[in-house]
């Protein structure tokens, strides 16, 4: 166990810190803006975004180095600066293209995606295909050089802003469900696409439904082989699951919670001085610490190229749950103030605790429900048998 960073990394840290200090004034205020794209370019240029993407495709071209990536994240967070873009195009499509795209697809899409010039959305889930994603029924039938797509997707975030979609469609209706799927990429302005905002329990439309009516997509805009879309998508899903359940977020929430409990009062006593609440806070603190150190353990594995196995599989389940519990506890100690929601002089933290409490429930369900996660942990992590196929 050695949690210090070697000297060359401390040098690197100093560089990052200096960058943050120098360029703080160029940080963008909003995400979809010219400033945001300029910031992204600046970051790529310095190797703080798209760090390991080859130069040929518009990245910085560094060797993967988990520690440096972590240092970048630590310093940007400490400085309160927005990190490199992490939209679905950059986090999911780009790695997929790098692994399975044609040279032409790489040349055409990676660089503008990295620069934030092309925004992507993801067309995977359908109303009838959630946990059972492979049951998707959006159909792509051949017509000359095109596929013609009909069907519906759901849970498509940024669909309204997106230029492009990467989308799973069924190209072979007669094959077993995992074998008839293909992975297509096409512009969102293609005729026949309708986007409807999907409002959630938070009251906001964080997602959309996307409807396809006779949407024509050239056959060449397939990634990987026809009928191999399930494998292509799984390569991508791995990346998504890594993104959820971030222990940094839990740490940030905990700190905010502690501060709140030291300043807010009930009957003139600090919330922290209510022993029952303090004890609950302490229980959560232990969990946050455990997840944080668990993250260090995974980091070490990644750095050494070891597969952490079980240890990785539990992150989404435990991380999302912990975040949800932190938000729920914050609402609890706020009492009636904790159910305020909407403009009010008495609203705490802009209503973020409530909004997160609800959104977290979506995260617990989305990207593989807690139940699916437990299946995965037991089957892949503990080697327990899959459920037998039903006889009927």
């Amino acid at each position, binding site marked *: 166990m050695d949690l210090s960073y070697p000297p060359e990394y401390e040098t690197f840290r100093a560089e990052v810190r200096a960058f943050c200090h120098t360029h703080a004034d160029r940080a963008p205020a909003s995400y979809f803006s010219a400033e945001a794209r300029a910031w992204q370019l600046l970051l790529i240029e310095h190797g703080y975004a798209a760090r390991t993407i080859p130069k040929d495709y518009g990245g910085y071209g560094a060797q993967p180095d988990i520690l440096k990536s972590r240092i970048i994240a630590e310093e940007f967070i400490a400085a309160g600066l927005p990190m490199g873009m992490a939209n679905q195009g950059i986090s999911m499509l780009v790695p997929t293209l790098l692994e399975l795209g044609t040279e032409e697809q790489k040349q055409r899409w990676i660089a503008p995606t990295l620069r934030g010039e092309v925004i992507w959305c993801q067309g995977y889930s359908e109303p009838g295909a959630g*946990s059972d994603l492979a049951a998707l029924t959006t159909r792509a039938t051949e017509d000359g050089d095109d596929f013609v797509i009909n069907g519906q997707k759901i849970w498509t975030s940024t669909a309204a802003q997106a230029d492009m979609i990467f989308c799973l469609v069924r190209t072979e209706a007669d094959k077993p469900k995992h074998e008839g799927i293909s992975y297509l990429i096409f512009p969102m302005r293609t005729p026949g696409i309708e986007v409807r905002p999907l409002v959630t329990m938070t009251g906001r439309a964080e997602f959309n439904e996307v409807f396809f009516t006779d949407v024509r997509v050239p056959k060449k805009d397939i990634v990987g082989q026809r009928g191999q879309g399930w494998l292509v998508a799984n390569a991508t899903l791995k990346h998504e699951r890594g993104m959820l359940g971030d222990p940094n977020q839990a740490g940030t929430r905990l700190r905010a919670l502690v501060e709140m409990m030291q300043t807010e*009062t009930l009957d003139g006593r600090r919330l922290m001085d209510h022993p029952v609440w303090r004890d609950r806070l302490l229980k959560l603190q232990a969990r946050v610490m455990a997840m944080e150190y668990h993250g260090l353990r995974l980091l070490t594995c990644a750095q050494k190229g070891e597969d952490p196995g079980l240890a990785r599989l539990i992150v989404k389940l435990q991380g999302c749950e912990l975040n949800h519990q932190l938000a729920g506890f914050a609402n609890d100690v706020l009492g009636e103030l*904790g159910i305020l929601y909407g403009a009010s002089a008495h609203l705490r933290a802009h209503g973020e605790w409530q909004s997160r409490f609800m959104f977290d429930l979506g995260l617990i369900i989305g990207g593989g429900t807690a139940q699916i996660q437990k299946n995965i942990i037991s089957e892949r992590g503990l080697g327990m048998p899959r459920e037998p196929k039903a006889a009927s």
Partner: protein
Amino acid sequence: MDFGLSDDQKMMQESVGRTLERAVPLDAVRKGASAFEALKELGVPGILIPEADGGLGLTLLDAAVVAEQLGRHVAPMPFTASAVMAPLALKGTPWLKKLAAGEIRCGVAVSEHASGAREDAGIVSRNRKLSGRAMFALDADGADIFVVADKFGDLHLVQAKDVEITLLPTIDTTRAVAKLELHDADAEPLKDASILRIIDAGRVVLAADTLGAGTRMLEKAVAYAKERKQFGRVIGSFQAVKHMCAEMAAELEPARALVWYAAYGFDACPAESRRLAAHAKAHTSEIGPFVARTATEVHGGMGFTDLLGLHYWFKRIGFNRQLLGSPERVREDAARAQGWIGN
């Protein structure tokens, strides 16, 4: 010896349920409809008011039966304060007749005593005038009068027109709470009313509301699980989903008995009612959110959307948990009521 609802109570349950189904289906709830007029015809605003004053003269158990239905239907309706707490506070005053007739509505501001004081709230009474701020007044929207507690827990009646009312938007859009600011507002002392009794009654009624909302969420989860297919099976045939539903049921059934008993005990054994009400409120506040969350998870992504509207129940339960005292606070009242804490 008969533990359960009487035939009259079952009839009330049914007719209130039917009325709400008709008057405030979810689509109407979304649009901010109120169940007040519809339930006025059934006499609900006067449920606890003596027949002599034009009310139904019923017991808190009857009110709890109604509250369970209100929770089931996430019904927008001034009830906890206006139909339960206020009539107890206003016993013997001429206001009862108007409340019973549904001519006026009454808000209640006792949060500082039920939940503890936040935001420097507190009302000072001097020479039949009230000044100060009261937070989280219940049933405040459209209230004509308010029952307000001062710092000593004495209750007073004030006219809405003499109060500066700021509605506080909460997660639950079906019921209104407000901040009240009073500056030498004329006040009528309510000498015969006990603030503890009206808080107890309010707690029981919120507990019943959660029970109704939770029960409905379980029913919805079971129905959805029997219909929704994934992996070629209805999801209700997966053991994980079945056990989630079983756990909700296992929590709700005994809670129902606790709520009914607490409501019954409010009238039948007043000496016990503080402890009973506190436990009913705190316990439903613990299991309610468990049910709300679990039922949402059974619905998967759809449970999280606004499309199904399941979140109206989720939020109703969340609201009930925090009003009139968080569970920890309320349990301390239960401890005090049985002499477990020295003062």
